[in-house]
Structures are given as C-alpha cells and as structure tokens.
C-alpha cells in the first residue's frame, strides 16, 4: 500500500493504482473521455490531466501510477486551463450544429464534459477533419464527422471481441476510424454486435433506427402489428427512465407498448422455452446418433456472423435452431395467424432486442420459412425508450401490463436467456429431467452463472453419462473455445456462446453506459424474475405443450424444420 495526497486529502491505495482510481476513493471525479474502465487506459485525450508535484508537465491521471508521498492537484488554474484547452480542441473539430438532431443528444459524454468544464465558446475555428457517413449495414451507422478519435471502439472491437473490423487509418488531421480500404462495415467481417456503440462517447456510432417504419406500421389500419421483447430488455429499459440498473420493469414495459398501439404483445421468452425443447432434442439426437459434437448454441446473431466469417469450417457445430425471436415471428405468421384468422400478409412483427446484430439477422434471406418474413423490424431497447418518450407516455406512472396468449407464456428458464450462462442453465434443467424422468431438487446451476469469460461444468445425466458443457461470452472468449475445437481439445457436448460480454443484458442495443457492475445488476434482475416465477423449466410451459399438440407435432418434426430451424452461410474472412 502507498499513501498519496490528492487535493489536500490523504488516500491509501495499492501500489499500481492510477491517480484516477485513487482520486475516486476521496470522492474526486477527474473527468475522462478516452478512458474506459476494464478496457482502455491510454492517456490519449488529455482530459484527465492533473498536476503532480515534482513533474514539470501535467500528467494523465488514467495512466499515472500512484506512489508513496505523491502530491496531486486535480483542480487548480493550470489544470483547469489545460483540460479546457483539450476539450475545446476536440469540440472545435466536432459538428456542434448537429447536437439537436444527434441520436446521442443529452446522452453524449462530450456534451456533458463541455458543460462540466464550463466551456461557453469555441475559440478555434477553421477547417474540420470531416469524413463520411456509413449507413449501408442494416444495424450500425457510423458518422465520421462526429468521431473524436478516442479509439474506444477500436479497442473494444480488437481486444474484447477480437474482430478488428475497424482501426485508425491514416495520420494527423486525416486520421479516420474505419475498416481497411475505407470499406463500409457492411462489406467487411464486422459482426454488427454494436459493442462499439456502447463505448462511443458521442454520436459517431449508433444503431440504424427503424422507429419511423414501426410508427407507420402501427398507424396503418390494414396492418396487425405484433411486438415481442427479449428478456434482457426488461432488465435494462428502466435505466432509460431514471431507474437504477438492475430494476426489472416488465410490467411497465408491457403497459407502455400496448399504449404505443401494438395489437398484440408476445414474449420472445415463449420461444426461448421452445428453443430449449428443439435444441435439447437436437443435442440428444446428436449424442445418441453420433452427430457433430460439441454442439453450439445459435441464439446470438453476432456470434453466428463471427463463426461464418472466421470459422466457416466449424459451422456444422452450430445448432440449426433459429434464434428465439425469429421462431416467434415464424409462429406468429403461421400458428397464431391461423388461430386468430388473420391473413399473415397483414401481420407485422416487431422485435425489441438488446441487440444490433438482430437487425441484420431478421433481414437474412433464409429467415422466411413460412413464405413471409419471420420478423419485419427489429428495434433496440434504446429505440423502444425513444418511442415511449415520443408518445408522451409517463413510464413511471404506468400500471403493470400483461402478455397476450398464446405466445406470451414463459418460464424462469426462458428469462435467464438474457444473461451469460442462461441458455445453458435452462437446457440443463430440461435435459436432466427429461432424460431421467426425475424431478430436479436444485434448479440453480451456479457454475454457469457469473462473468468469468469461460465457464465449465460436468453434469451427470442418467442414461447418457457425464455431460460436459462450457459457456463463453464475448467473442474473444468464443475465439478461444473455437481454437480448442479446431485442435481437438474441446471435449464438450454442448457449448453456449453469446457474442456480447455478459450476454444479452449488455448487448449493443442496450442503454449506455455498460460496465461489469451494470452487467451483474441486470443479470441479477433476470435471476430474480426466474426465482419468482412458478414454472422454472421450459418443458413445463403449458403453452409449449399446447403448441406441439395443436400445431408443431413433435420436436425436430417437419413443421419445426421449416419454421424453427435454419442454415448458415460461410462468409469471407475479410
């Protein structure tokens, strides 16, 4: 431990702690911009400058290590002047006229910083570095004119996701963050996961909004508009309305979407339960008949695009199950349309997802097994919040709403899909009971919960033996598992892979900010919902039983094959 003095206050920290972290212990919040806890500390933006006695120059607090006897000043005239200068320089190259129309208006770190530092005029005028807008992908829009070159997106894409779709190109005033050869994100091996959106401090990377299309469908009297939401949405939407992270707002969300004018409110969770039945049957079939193992989950479209680009040889390991919201879309336009006597041509399915890659997924040509698009529009959690605000709905004041039958009933096993390890836990609950016919005493599989990058478990299942499973979240961890499959050292039966670190609760479509603490809190909310539900095993969902009786026949049957399963495409490495 070392003792240092920050603004006249003594603070004791472990050696190696940065001044930035040490300052927080004495309630001093040094402003930052390029710094990103857990991911990036490079001292590039010069916003966190502090005066360290004995050092001629001001030092960046995010990388300067605390040491014994250090005396630090974080707020004097010299420091204030330097910080202001740094931010004024950044602002001078930023299109300030766009603030009112920017998707990040009022949620912009640069805006807040300029305000916090009391910047009231921009002294520097002249040429701006400019750049292009890339809106060719169905998921992500990049506006280079707004980019402040903090490199957070580059680091998250390279270090966390190991995708490196973007990098800093050129130098000096002409530096740009973009893919090689100035290509569009749509034309490179970007997984469209949107982790870059979560870390962008400004509006340089945002989701491609589909809000207007959804409003038009809602107000088109000839359309029957159905909305469904993924489990992770209810664990995070509240943050957009001032609730603390980890507040479950299922009831208010349901009331809000009904007020927006959707005709039916279904739950992606219903299809999550269905996924467990289909995927579980597929796994048992592969184990019994000597199919390709380990089998890997397929609910995460960013992960799917990753394996298609980087490990196309290993595509047979993927479960052929569509992701739950695609399944639900397909069933809405077949099973439900038939039941309700509605022409599927008039049904519009809107999915609220914590995910930007889902926008791409729903546009994949094969996602139309019924002859109609499974899902017409995907909007993110953030877009739903915008729609609720646009409609003038007082979210906090709403009474609890409800899901509609017959595609709205769900179990605790489905709701934990939103957290890393959730799909695995749900699958294990069902596999253990279905294979053995015995009732599980403890439904909580702690070994697959939490934020460890790769989690493993061995579960004895009567009649099959020891089932070896693994769970990975974040594509960097997925890559490690894939390398082990390649070299033959991954002797698992079943692997769950989620593209985003933490799973869907911190997907690219979720409210900002996201960090490990927020990941934990959102996951906790889902585990709490699971605990509170009466039915916690997918195979016990009465609506699931009914849909097999009335419509699907049996798992992996012909109808399932057409509507609930899919195929994959080997894509180029670059």
């Amino acid at each position: 431990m070392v003792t240092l003095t920050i603004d006249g206050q003594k603070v004791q920290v472990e050696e190696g702690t940065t001044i930035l972290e040490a300052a927080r212990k004495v309630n001093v919040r040094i402003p930052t911009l390029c710094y990103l806890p857990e991911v990036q500390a490079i001292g590039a933006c010069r916003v966190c400058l502090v005066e360290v006695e004995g050092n001629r120059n001001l030092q960046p607090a995010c990388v300067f290590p605390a040491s014994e006897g250090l005396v630090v000043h974080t707020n004097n005239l010299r420091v204030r002047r330097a910080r202001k200068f740094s931010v004024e320089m950044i602002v001078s190259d930023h299109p300030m006229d766009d603030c009112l129309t920017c998707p990040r208006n009022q949620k912009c770190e640069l805006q807040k910083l300029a305000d916090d530092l009391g910047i009231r005029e921009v002294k520097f005028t002249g040429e701006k570095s400019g750049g292009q807008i890339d809106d060719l992908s169905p998921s992500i829009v990049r506006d280079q004119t707004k980019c402040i070159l903090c490199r957070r997106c580059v680091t998250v894409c390279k270090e966390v996701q190991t995708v490196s779709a973007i990098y800093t190109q050129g130098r000096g005033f002409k530096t740009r963050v973009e893919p090689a050869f100035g290509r569009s994100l749509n034309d490179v091996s970007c997984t469209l996961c949107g982790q870059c959106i979560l870390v962008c401090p400004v509006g340089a990377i945002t989701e491609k909004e589909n809000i207007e299309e959804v409003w038009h469908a809602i107000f088109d009297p000839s359309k029957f508009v159905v909305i469904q939401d993924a489990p992770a949405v209810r664990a995070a939407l509240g943050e957009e309305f001032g609730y603390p992270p980890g507040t479950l707002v299922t009831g208010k969300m349901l009331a809000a979407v009904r007020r927006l004018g959707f005709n039916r409110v279904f739950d992606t969770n219903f299809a999550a339960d269905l996924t467990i039945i289909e995927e579980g049957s597929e796994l048992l079939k592969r184990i019994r008949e000597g199919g390709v193992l380990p089998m890997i989950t397929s609910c995460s479209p960013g992960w799917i695009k990753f394996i298609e680009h980087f490990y196309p040889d290993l595509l047979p390991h993927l479960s052929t199950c569509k992701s739950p919201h695609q399944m639900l879309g397909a069933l809405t336009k077949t099973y439900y349309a038939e039941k309700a006597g509605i022409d599927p041509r008039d049904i519009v399915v809107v999915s609220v997802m914590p995910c930007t890659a889902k926008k791409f997924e729903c546009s994949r040509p094969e996602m139309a097994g019924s002859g109609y698009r499974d899902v017409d529009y995907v909007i993110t959690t953030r877009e739903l919040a915008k729609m609720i605000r646009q409609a003038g709905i007082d979210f906090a004041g709403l009474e609890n709403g409800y899901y509609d039958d017959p595609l709205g009933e769900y179990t605790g096993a489905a709701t934990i899909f939103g957290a890393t390890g959730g799909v695995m836990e749900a699958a294990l609950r069902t596999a253990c009971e279905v294979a053995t016919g015995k009732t599980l005493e403890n439904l909580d599989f702690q070994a697959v919960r939490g934020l460890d990058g790769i989690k493993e478990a061995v579960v004895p299942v009567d009649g099959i033996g020891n089932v070896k499973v693994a769970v990975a979240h974040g594509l960097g961890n997925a890559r490690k598992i894939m390398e082990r499959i390649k070299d033959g050292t991954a002797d698992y039966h079943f692997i769950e892979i989620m593209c985003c670190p933490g799973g869907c609760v911190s997907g690219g479509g979720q409210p900002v900010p996201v960090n490990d603490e927020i990941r934990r809190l959102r996951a906790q909310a889902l585990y709490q919902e699971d605990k509170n539900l009466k039915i916690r095993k997918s195979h016990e969902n009465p609506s699931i039983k009914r849909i097999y009786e009335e419509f699907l026949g049996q798992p992996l049957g012909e109808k399932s094959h057409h509507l609930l399963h899919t195929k994959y495409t080997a894509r180029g490495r670059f």
Partner: protein
Amino acid sequence: MENQGCSCAPINEEDLYPKIEEIINQHRGNQNALIMVLHKAQNLFGYLPGRVQEMVSLGLGVPLSEVYGVATFYAFFSMVPKGRHEIKVCLGTACYVRGGQKIVEYLEKGLGVRVGDTTKDRRFSLNEVRCVGACSLAPAVLVNDDVYAQVDPAKVDEILVKYE
C-alpha cells in the same frame, strides 16, 4: 533501396506474388514482423496492392484493418503503383519558404496528377517530402536519387525530359 528492380524492364506483377509469399512464410504468425514485411512488399511491388495486404494479414495473423492502418500511417508505404521515376518535392521549412509549394502546383498541373499519385503511363509518381537535409539548396527536388537544387517551375520541364 533493395529489390527496386530494373526500371527499364516492365515488371509482371503476378510474378512477384510467389516472392512475397516466401517472405511472409519466413515470418508466419509473427505479428511483430508487420512493418518489416510491408517494407519488403513495398520495395518489391513499388506499392502495397490490396491482395498483398490480405496475404500479410493472414500470414502474420494481424487483422486487415490494422495492416491497412499501418500502411496508411507511414508515408513510406503507398497504395498506388509507383511510376518508373519518383519525383519528390521538398516542402521542409526552408524549401517551403523558397517556393516549394509552387513547384508542387506546377507539377500537379503539368503531369495531371495529385500529390501521392502516379501518371497514367506510369512514368512519374509525384510526392512531397518534409526536409531532405538539403536546406542550403532550397527549394530542392529529387528525381529518384538525383538531387536538383534551387529549382523553380521554369526549370522543371528540362529536368523531367531526362527521365523516360
């Protein structure tokens, strides 16, 4: 410079790919060799074709975006094929104040290319450099390895005829 090749014989680019493959193979999987390998590729091809950058990316295990990032960061690397002769106009402080920029403008107009580009017949490529250490000769122009002192636009044409 090594491997620049004889400038009078036309180079068939296809023939160069096995050579770069060989160089990459010597450094397979070694990300630290990126700049060195790009350096050799630049000398071999006279520029860095996209296909070469993809080969380097796969061979060394460096993401393509990063290969391109390095290639666009250093002025030494070029994305367009170099001409048979490279004109470098010095725009260091001394040459700039003595009229280096006027020479650049004259050349851009005369050759019909912008700085960084190569003429259609691949005879010349035009580049700026920042100080070649010949400040007493300002403004200086280099053609290949020949240094021309106190150049003004009127002298440019008679210099260029020497290079076919």
